[in-house]
C-alpha cells in the first residue's frame, strides 16, 4: 500500500499526536512533581541523544556537553530576562550593552533557544577546529578543559553573567509542550541523520578512521559536523533547563551534568539513539529515587545525616561496573525501529500473515 518509509513516517506522526494528547492530559491531571520529572527527563533526552551522536555514533570522546549547555543556558537567560529585572539582578556590576537595553518578548522564546543552540555550536566549532584534525584523544582533554573554563568564565565575567550569584527570576517559559516537542524533534532529526548516508559515514569513522578516509570521507568535516550539531542540541537543552528552573549560576552546569549524560548513553548503548532516549527518561526517575539515599536516615543507634553526593558515588560505580561487565548497554548499537515495534505489537498476526 505504502512504501516502508511512508508507513514509518505515518507511525511517527501517530506517535507525535499521541505524545501531544499525553502532554495535554498531563498538564491537566498530573501533579507538579511528576510534571517536573517529565520535563527534566525530556531535557535529558535532548542532551543525551545529542551527546550520543558524537560519542556513540562518531566514536569521538567528548566531555563537553555541560559547557555547551551552559552557553545555551546563559544565552537564553540573557535574552529572556526582562530589562527591569536585569537591573535588579545585576547589582554588583551593571549588565553590559546590548543585553541591558532589551529582552525578547515571550513570543520570541523559540528564537532565543535557537540562538542559544547556535552559539553553543559556534563554541563547538572553536574547540573542534584544533582538536578534531588530530588523531588521538585530544578532543577529550580539550572538551574537559572547556567545560571547566566555561565555569571559570561564568564566575569571572560578572558584567555578563553576574558571577557566582548567577541570574535569578528567569521567566518560566518552559513547560511540557516545549520539552516534549523539542525532545521529539531532536530524536526524530538525529535518528534521520544517523540513518542517512551521513550517519553511515559517521559510523565508518567510528569503526576505522584510516579506512573511512581511504573511502573518500573527509574526517575533519564530518566530525566537526557531528560535534557542532550535538552542541546545538545541548545548547537548546541548556536553554530549556534554565527557563524550567528559572535560575542559572556557574554551578548549574558542572561536570556532573556531563557525567549524568555519559551514564545515560552508556546505559542505553553507545550508538543507539533510541536507547539513549529510553534511558534518559529512566535516569530522570532513577535520580529522584536516589534522592532517598541522600536523605537523612536513622538505622538503629546510627544516624546517617543527609549525604549529598552519595548519588554520584552510586552513579560512578554503576558506570565503571557497566563498562567492565556490560559494555554494550541495554540496546548495544541497535535502534528500536518501527519494524521492531510492529513485530512486538502484531507478533501473532505476522505469524499468520507473513511479510508485512
Amino acid at each position, binding site marked *: 500500500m505504502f512504501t516502508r518509509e511512508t508507513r514509518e513516517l505515518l507511525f511517527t506522526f501517530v506517535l507525535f499526536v499521541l505524545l501531544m494528547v499525553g502532554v495535554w492530559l498531563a498538564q491537566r491531571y498530573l501533579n507538579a512533581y511528576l510534571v517536573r520529572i517529565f520535563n527534566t527527563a525530556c531535557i535529558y533526552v535532548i542532551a543525551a541523544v545529542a551527546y550520543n551522536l558524537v560519542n556513540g555514533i562518531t*566514536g569521538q570522546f567528548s566531555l563537553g556537553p555541560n559547557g555547551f549547555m551552559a552557553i545555551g543556558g546563559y544565552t537564553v537567560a540573557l535574552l529572556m530576562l526582562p530589562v527591569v529585572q536585569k537591573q535588579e539582578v545585576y547589582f554588583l556590576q551593571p549588565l553590559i550593552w546590548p543585553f541591558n537595553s532589551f529582552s525578547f518578548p515571550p513570543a520570541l522564546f523559540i528564537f532565543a533557544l535557537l540562538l542559544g543552540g547556535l552559539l553553543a555550536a559556534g563554541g563547538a566549532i572553536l574547540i573542534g577546529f584544533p582538536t578534531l584534525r588530530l588523531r588521538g584523544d*585530544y578532543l577529550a582533554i580539550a572538551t574537559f*578543559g572547556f567545560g571547566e*573554563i566555561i565555569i571559570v568564565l561564568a564566575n569571572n565575567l560578572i558584567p555578563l553573567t553576574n558571577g557566582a550569584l548567577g541570574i535569578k527570576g528567569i521567566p518560566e517559559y518552559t513547560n511540557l509542550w516545549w520539552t516534549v516537542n523539542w525532545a521529539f524533534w531532536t530524536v526524530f532529526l538525529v535518528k534521520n541523520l544517523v540513518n542517512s548516508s551521513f550517519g553511515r559515514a559517521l559510523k565508518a569513522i567510528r569503526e576505522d578512521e584510516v579506512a573511512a578516509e581511504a573511502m573518500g570521507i573527509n574526517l575533519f568535516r564530518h566530525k566537526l559536523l557531528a560535534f557542532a550539531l550535538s552542541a546545538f542540541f545541548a545548547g537548546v537543552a541548556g536553554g530549556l533547563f534554565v527557563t524550567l528552573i528559572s535560575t542559572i549560576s556557574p554551578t548549574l552546569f558542572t561536570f556532573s551534568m556531563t557525567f549524568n549524560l555519559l551514564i545515560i548513553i552508556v546505559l542505553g548503548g553507545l550508538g543507539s539513539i533510541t536507547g539513549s532516549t529510553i534511558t534518559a527518561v529512566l535516569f530522570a526517575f532513577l535520580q529522584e529515587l536516589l534522592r532517598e539515599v541522600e536523605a537523612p536516615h536513622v538505622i538503629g543507634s546510627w544516624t546517617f545525616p543527609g*549525604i549529598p553526593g*552519595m548519588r554520584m558515588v552510586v552513579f560512578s560505580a554503576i*558506570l565503571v561496573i557497566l563498562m567492565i561487565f556490560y559494555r554494550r548497554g541495554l540496546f548495544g548499537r541497535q535502534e528500536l525501529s518501527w519494524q521492531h515495534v510492529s513485530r512486538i505489537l502484531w507478533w501473532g498476526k505476522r505469524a499468520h500473515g507473513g511479510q508485512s
Partner: protein
Amino acid sequence: MTWTTFFQQLMNGVSVGSLYALLAIGYTLVYGILGLINFAHSDVFMLGTYFAFFMIGIFLLPWWISVLIGVGLCALVGVTIERVAYRPLRNAPRISALITAVGVSFFIENLGLVTVGARPKGFPRPELMKNVYFIAGARIQGVTFWVPLISIAVLLVLFYLVYRTKLGMAMRAVSKDMETTRLMGVNVDRVILYAFALGSALAGIGGVLWACKYPQINPLMGIFPGWKAFTAAVVGGIGNVVGAMIGGFIIGLAEIMIVAFFPNLTGYRDAFVFALLIIFLLVKPSGIMGETLKEKV
C-alpha cells in the same frame, strides 16, 4: 615590577611547574603505554595528601614517615585501579577505557566528598617548609625553595629509573610496541603495573608538596592541577617523559608569570592554560619533544 618580586614569582613559577611536571609524568607514562588518559591520576594526587593528612592527624606519625606511607598507598591505589578497572578493558574500544577512567575518577572524587566532606582541611606543614630564606635580597618562603628542589631530586631519580634501569627499558619498549615486547619475553602486564605504581607514587609526592604550597586540601583539589598537568604532557609531547617535565615547567611558569604581570586577570588563570593548550594543538600538536604519531596502516 621590581627585580625581587620578579625573582620571587620566578621561583614560584618553577615550584608550581615542578609539581605539574611530577604529575604530568604519571599521565605520560600511562598514555605512552596504554594510549589512555588516566583521568583518575589527578585523584591519586589528591588521595596522597589525605593519606598523609590522616597518618599525621590520626596515627600521629612523624611528618616524613606519614608522607612516605601516603606515597606508598598512592602507588597501591594506582595499581589497584589498573588491575580492577583498566585491565579488563585493555582490548576494548578506546572509548570504553576512557569512559571507565572518567568513571573511576568521578567515583574517587565523590567518595571523597561523602567521606571527608567538601570543606577544605588545613594540611600540616613541617617546619622546614615554613622557614623563610633570603636569596639575592628576595624573601623566599621555605616551600618555594624546597618544593622545586625536592621535585627535581625526585625527577632525577625517575629519569635514572626510566633511562638507566632494566625496568625503565622495559617500559619504554612496551610503549614503543607492546606486542613485540611481549614476544621478547617481557611480562607486559607487570611492566604496566610498575608504570602505574611509579606514576601514582609521583602523583602522591606531588600532592603532598602541593599541599605544602597550598595547605588547604579538599577532595576536588586534584581536578585543575591534573588537567593542567595533562596539558603539560601534551605540550611536552605526550608519551615522552622528558617532554612532560619540560611541559610542566612551561605551564607552571606561564601561569604564574601571567598572573604576576596582569594581576587583575587572576581569576582567568585557568583559562590561560586552556588557551595555551588550544594554541599548541593548532601549531604543534605533537608537542615539543614528541614525534608525530602515525598510525600504522
